[in-house]
C-alpha cells in the first residue's frame, strides 16, 4: 500500500490549530479526521498527544515556508547547466539558513516548554507532589498566547489576509484560553465576587494603557513597515546584482577572451542583450506554446550553438494549430542549414494569419541547387520539405547567388484536409 511518491511532510494550509493533522494526513495518506482522533486519543492517555502535536508543530515547516524556500532556491529563468547547478547549490544553502533562522525562536521556546513538561511528568512518576491544578491552567495560558501570537506572525507576512474569519476565531480561542487559565489560577486564592470586581478594574486599566500607548504603537508599526520595505528593496538589489554577476559579467569575461573573433563577440553580446532584456522586461505576454515563442527559442538555441546572428521578426501569433510541431522543427532545420552553410545574418520572419502560419528563413550565402544535393543527404529534402508535406503544409526553397530563402507554410483550421503524400 506504499504509494509511489509520498508527499512531503509539511504543515497543511487548511488548519485548525497549526495544520499538523492535515499535514500528517496528507503525508500518510489517511483521512485527516482519523489523525485528529488519534491525537485526541493519545491526549487522553496522559497528554502524550499534546506533546507529539507540539513536537511536530515545532519541527515540521509549514506549507508556506516550504513553498517560499522552494521559490527562493529556484528562479524562473532558463540558464546553462553549470549556472543552474551553482544556483541550486546556493539556493540549497540559503534554504537551510532561512529555515533555521525562521523557526529558531519557536524551537527554543517550545522546546524548553516541552522539556519542563517532560521533567514534571517524570517527577510525578517518581512520586513528587506536583500541583497539576496550577500547571494545566498555565499550560493553557501559554498555548493561548502562542496561538494568538502565531496569528499575528501570519498576518504580518501577509499570507492569510483573506482568511480573516478563521484567523479571528483562532485569536478569540487564544484569548479565551489565556483568560480562562488566569481565572482558574486566581480562583484558587480569590473569591468569585472579588474576581469579578477586579476584572472591571483591570479592564479600566487596560483601556487607559491602550489610549496612552496607542501613538507609540502606531509609530512603531510605521517604523516597522518602512524598515520592511527598505529590506525588500535591498533584497531586490541583491537579486539584481546576483543576476548581473551570473549573466552579464560572465559574458563580458568571455567576450574579452574572444576579442579576436568579432563575429563571436557580436553574437555573444546579442545573446546577452536578449537575455537581459528578457529578464528585465519579460516576454510580450505570449504563451510558451506559441509558435512565435517556439521559433524564437529555436533561433536563440542556434545562435548560442553556432554563434550566429539570427533575427526573428514576428507578425501576429498562433498556437495549438495542427502541424505546429512540424513547422517549428522544419524552421529549426532551415535555420540550422543557413547557420551551417551561409555567412552573414540570418533573417527569420513569421507571419500568422487566420488561414496559415508562414515562416521565411533567409540567409546571405551563395545559394544551392536542390537537385545538386546527393540523394543520401536528408537535411533539406527530408527534414524540411518531407516533414512539412506530411503535416499538411508546404515548403519552398528559393535560392540564388545572393542568398537562399526557405519558405514554410502551414494551413490553419482547414478542417479535415487529407495529408496526402
Amino acid at each position, binding site marked *: 500500500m506504499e504509494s509511489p511518491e509520498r508527499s512531503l511532510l509539511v504543515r497543511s494550509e487548511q488548519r485548525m490549530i497549526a495544520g499538523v493533522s492535515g499535514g500528517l494526513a496528507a503525508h500518510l495518506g489517511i483521512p485527516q479526521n482519523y489523525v485528529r482522533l488519534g491525537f485526541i486519543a493519545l491526549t487522553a492517555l496522559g497528554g502524550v498527544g499534546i506533546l507529539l502535536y507540539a513536537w511536530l508543530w515545532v519541527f515540521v515547516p509549514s506549507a508556506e515556508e516550504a513553498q517560499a524556500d522552494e521559490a527562493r532556491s529556484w528562479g524562473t529563468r532558463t540558464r546553462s547547466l553549470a549556472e543552474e547547478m551553482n544556483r541550486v547549490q546556493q539556493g540549497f544553502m540559503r534554504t537551510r539558513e532561512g529555515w533555521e533562522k525562521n523557526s529558531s525562536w519557536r524551537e527554543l521556546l517550545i522546546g524548553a516548554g516541552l522539556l519542563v513538561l517532560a521533567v514534571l511528568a517524570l517527577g510525578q512518576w517518581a512520586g513528587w507532589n506536583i500541583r497539576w491544578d496550577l500547571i494545566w491552567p498555565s499550560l493553557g495560558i501559554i498555548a493561548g498566547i502562542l496561538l494568538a501570537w502565531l496569528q499575528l506572525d501570519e498576518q504580518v507576512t501577509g499570507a492569510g489576509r483573506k482568511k480573516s474569519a478563521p484567523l479571528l476565531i483562532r485569536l478569540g480561542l487564544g484569548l479565551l484560553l489565556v483568560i480562562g487559565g488566569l481565572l482558574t489560577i486566581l480562583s484558587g486564592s480569590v473569591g468569585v465576587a472579588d474576581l469579578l470586581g477586579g476584572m472591571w478594574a483591570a479592564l479600566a486599566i487596560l483601556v487607559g494603557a491602550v489610549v496612552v500607548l496607542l501613538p507609540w504603537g502606531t509609530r512603531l508599526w510605521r517604523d516597522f513597515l518602512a524598515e520592511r520595505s527598505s529590506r525588500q528593496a535591498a533584497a531586490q538589489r541583491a537579486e539584481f546584482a546576483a543576476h548581473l554577476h551570473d549573466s552579464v559579467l560572465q559574458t563580458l569575461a568571455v567576450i574579452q577572451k574572444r576579442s579576436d573573433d568579432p563575429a563571436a563577440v*557580436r553574437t555573444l*553580446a*546579442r545573446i546577452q*542583450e536578449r537575455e537581459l*532584456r528578457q529578464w528585465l522586461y519579460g516576454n*510580450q505576454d505570449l504563451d510558451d506554446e506559441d509558435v512565435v515563442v517556439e521559433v524564437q527559442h529555436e533561433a536563440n538555441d542556434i545562435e548560442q550553438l553556432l554563434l550566429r546572428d539570427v*533575427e526573428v*521578426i*514576428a*507578425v*501576429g501569433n498562433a498556437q495549438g494549430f495542427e502541424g505546429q510541431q512540424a513547422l517549428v522543427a522544419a524552421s529549426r532545420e532551415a535555420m540550422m542549414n543557413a547557420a551551417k552553410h551561409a555567412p552573414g*545574418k540570418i*533573417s527569420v*520572419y513569421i*507571419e500568422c*494569419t*487566420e488561414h496559415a502560419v508562414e515562416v*521565411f528563413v*533567409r540567409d546571405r550565402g551563395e545559394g544551392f541547387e536542390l537537385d545538386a544535393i546527393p540523394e543520401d543527404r536528408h537535411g533539406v529534402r527530408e527534414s524540411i520539405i518531407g516533414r512539412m508535406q506530411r503535416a499538411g503544409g508546404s515548403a519552398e526553397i528559393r535560392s540564388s547567388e*545572393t542568398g537562399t*530563402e526557405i519558405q514554410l507554410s502551414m494551413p490553419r483550421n482547414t478542417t479535415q484536409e487529407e495529408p496526402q503524400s
Partner: protein
Amino acid sequence: MSTENTAQSYRVVLVDDHAIFRSGLKADLASDMHIVGEAGNVEEAIAVITETKPDVVLLDVHLPGGRAGGGAEVLKNCAQLLGSTKFLALSVSDAAQDVVTVIRAGARGYVTKSISGEEISDAVRRVAAGDAVFSPRLAGFVLDAFGSSTAVSDIDEELDLLSDRELQVMRLIARGYSYKEVATELFISVKTVESHVSNVLRKLQLSNRHELTRWAVDRKIL
C-alpha cells in the same frame, strides 16, 4: 533640405549620452559625414540642434534630462525644424517599444547601435535625401499594427490603410530584404520602393488607427 552643401557632404549632430559610443561612432562614420555638434542630454540636444541646424541628427532614443521624455522630447522641441533637419533614431536594440515613440514624434527611421559605421552612414544619406529607413523589426511592427484583419467599415481614413503594394514591400523588408532586393523581387525601381516606404512612414506617423493605438497601449509605448 539645406541646399548649400549638397556636394555629397552631410552636416550631422550626434546626440547620445554615452561619450564612449559618440567617439566610437565618430571614428566609424564615412568621410562625407561632418559632425557639427554633439549633445549628451535633452537640453543640450535642443540647443545644439537649433543652433547648428544640421542635415541629419543621429538621436539616441534614451536620453537623460528634460522631462524624461528622451529622444521623443528632443523631437517635439525641434518640431519647427523637421522640414529641413532629418532625425534618425538610434537605439541599443531594435525593440519596437524603444523606437515607435520617436518615429511617431517625427524621426525618419531608426538604426540599432550595433550596426556598422558604413550602414549608419548609408542610413544617414538615405534620411538626408528624404527617404525613410526601415529595419525588418519596424516593418514587422507596421504589419502587426496595420495588418489585414480589420473589417473595411472600421477604416475611415486613407491613412489607416496600407495599399497592397505597401504591404508587399513591408513584408519583404520584414523578411530581411534590402531595398534593392525588394525592387528586384517586385520588378519595380529602387526609387519606387523608397517612395512606398516613405508613404508607410507617413501613415505610421499620422494614423490614428485603432489597432495602432491598441498595439501601442498594449506595449505601453504611447
